[in-house]
C-alpha cells in the first residue's frame, strides 16, 4: 500500500507518471492515522459513533468534540486532522444557512455534501494550498427525504451510504457494519449496535483510554441532530461492553472445543452459545 512518489509528491498540482496525485493520497493517510468514526443509516434516522481517544487525563470531559452540528437537521462526524475538520464544518454551516436564506427550505443532504465536496476538491488543485486532511460523514433526517448519509473524503468525492466508517479501524468497522440489517432497525436499536462496533474495533493494546461520542438524528429526535442523551448512551455502552467481553469469552470457548473435538462443527455451536449467553445478558 505504501509507495514512494519521489519528486511527484511535492505539490497537489502535479500528477505522477502512473496518474496519481500523491498529496491527496497522503491526505487520506492522515485520516487513517486518526481514530475511528462510523455512521449508520436506519429506517427512521441516522446514528454516528466516534471513538475519541483521550490523550491526557487532564482533558475536560467532552472537549475536542468530533461530532458537529451543521444545521438543525444535519450532523457531521469527522476523522483526521481536527483543525481541518473544524474549518470544513464552518463551510458546511454556511452552505446550509445560505441555502435556507435563498430558497426558503432545509438543504437536501445530497446537495450539501456535493457543495462541501466541491470545496474540498478545490484544495486539491493548487500547489499554493494543501488538501484537507480529514474525511467526514454527513447525516440528516428530513420529513420528505427521510434519513440520508453521505461521506466526503480528502479527494473531494462524496457518496451516499447505508453505513460507512472512516479512520484507523475502518476495515474492521466496515465488516461489522455489513453484518447489520440496518434497513429494518430503528434508531434506538441502532445506537446499541453502533456503540458495540466502536468497542469492538477499539484497540485496547495500542490506545488505552477512549471516550465514546454518540449522536443521532431521526424521528426519535423529531428531525433534530443532537448528542444521544446520557441515559441511553450509558445503556448502549453497557450493552457494548457486555458484547465485547462475551465475544472474547466465546472465542476462547469455541477454540478449546475445536481443539478437543476435531469433528465438531464450530460455527453452528458458536451461534447457539452466542444466542443463549446474550439472551441471559439482555
Amino acid at each position, binding site marked *: 500500500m505504501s509507495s514512494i512518489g519521489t519528486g511527484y509528491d511535492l505539490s497537489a498540482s502535479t500528477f505522477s507518471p502512473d496518474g496519481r496525485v500523491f498529496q491527496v493520497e497522503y491526505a487520506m493517510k492522515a485520516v487513517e492515522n486518526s481514530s475511528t468514526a462510523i455512521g449508520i443509516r436506519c429506517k427512521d434516522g441516522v446514528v454516528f459513533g466516534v471513538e475519541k481517544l483521550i490523550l491526557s487525563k487532564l482533558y475536560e470531559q467532552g472537549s475536542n468534540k468530533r461530532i458537529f452540528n451543521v444545521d438543525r437537521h444535519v450532523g457531521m462526524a469527522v476523522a483526521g486532522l481536527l483543525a481541518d475538520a473544524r474549518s470544513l464544518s464552518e463551510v458546511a454551516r454556511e452552505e446550509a444557512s445560505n441555502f435556507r436564506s*435563498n*430558497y*426558503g*427550505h432545509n438543504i*437536501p443532504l*445530497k*446537495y450539501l455534501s456535493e457543495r462541501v465536496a466541491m470545496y474540498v476538491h478545490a484544495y486539491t488543485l493548487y500547489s499554493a494550498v494543501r488538501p484537507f486532511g480529514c474525511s467526514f460523514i454527513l447525516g440528516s433526517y428530513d420529513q*420528505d427525504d427521510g434519513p440520508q448519509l453521505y461521506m466526503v473524503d480528502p479527494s473531494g468525492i462524496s457518496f451516499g451510504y447505508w453505513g460507512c466508517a472512516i479512520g484507523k479501524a475502518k476495515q474492521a468497522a466496515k465488516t461489522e457494519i455489513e453484518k447489520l440489517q440496518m434497513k429494518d432497525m430503528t434508531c434506538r436499536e441502532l445506537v446499541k449496535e453502533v456503540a458495540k462496533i466502536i468497542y469492538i474495533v477499539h484497540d485496547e493494546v495500542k490506545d488505552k483510554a477512549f471516550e465514546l461520542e454518540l449522536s443521532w438524528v431521526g424521528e426519535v429526535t423529531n428531525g433534530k441532530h443532537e448528542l444521544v442523551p446520557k441515559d441511553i448512551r450509558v445503556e448502549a455502552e453497557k450493552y457494548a461492553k457486555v458484547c465485547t467481553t462475551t465475544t472474547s469469552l466465546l472465542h476462547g470457548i469455541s477454540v478449546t472445543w475445536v481443539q478437543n473435538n476435531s469433528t465438531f462443527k464450530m460455527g453452528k455451536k458458536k451461534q447457539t452459545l452466542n444466542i443463549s449467553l446474550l439472551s441471559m445478558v439482555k
Partner: protein
Amino acid sequence: MAAATAMRFGQLSSGSDMAPDWTTKEVSTGTTIMAVEYDGGVVIGADSRTTTGAYIANRVTDKLTPIHDRIFCCRSGSAADTQAIADVVTYQLGFHSIELDEAPLVQTAANLFKASCYRYREELMAGIIVAGWDKRRGGQVYTVPVGGMLVRQPVSVGGSGSTYIYGYMDSNYKPNMTKDQCLRLVSGALSLAMERDGSSGGVVRLAAISETGVDRQVILGNQLPKWSTIYLTIYPTVCLKDWRSTLLSKGLEIYPTVCLKDWRYTLLSV
C-alpha cells in the same frame, strides 16, 4: 395625433390636456389575477388587458407566465417590472433545479420572487401571485404583493380589479373544492371584476396546474359568465312544471326552501 406633434414644439406639461394620457404614462398591467388551491393542484386565472393610461396597449395579454414546468406566476403592476422579475426568477429557479437534480418546490420559487421584490421594493411596482404544484406539498398558492411580503394562502386575488371581488371570493370560496368548482369560481370572479374595473378586461385566461401537467384555457368575451340583472328575464312561456330545469340551465342553483307560490319574486332576488 396632429395635436400631439404640435405640442412637441411647445411645452409638454403633465397637466396639459392637449397630449393624450398615454404618452406620459407607464405601461401597466392594471389587472385582475387570481389563484385557488384544490386537492391535487391549483387553478390560476387572469384578465388580458394591458394599459398605458387610458389606451389599451394589448387586449389579449397573457399574464400567466410559466416559471418552471409546474410553477406559474400571475403578474400585476408594471408590465416591465414584472416581466423582468419573472425572467430573473426563471433563470435562478432553472439553475437551482438542475443543481438539485429534481423539480423545484413552489415555495422556493415564491422565496426567489420575494427576494427580488423586497430588495428592490423602492424601484419596483409589482404584485405577483406564485402558484404551482410540487410533489412535497401538492398545489400551493403564494402571494407576493407590492413591498415584498410573502404569505401562503389557499386562495388569493390581486391587481386593481381584485378590490371588487373580495366579497364574492369570501362568500363563494369553500375549502376542499374540486378542480371544476375552482375553474367556475375563478372565471366567475374574474368576469365580475372585469365588468367593474376599467383597467381589467378582454378575455379570461385560465390554467389548471397539477401533477399531470398544465391545462390552459381561454374564455372569450361573449362566453363569459353573465351577471347583470338585465340578462335575467322571466319568459311567460316558461312551463311551471319545468321551472327547476329552466333555472338550472341558466346556471342558477336551486335551494329546496324556495316557496313555489313566490317563485317570480324568488327568481328576481336570487
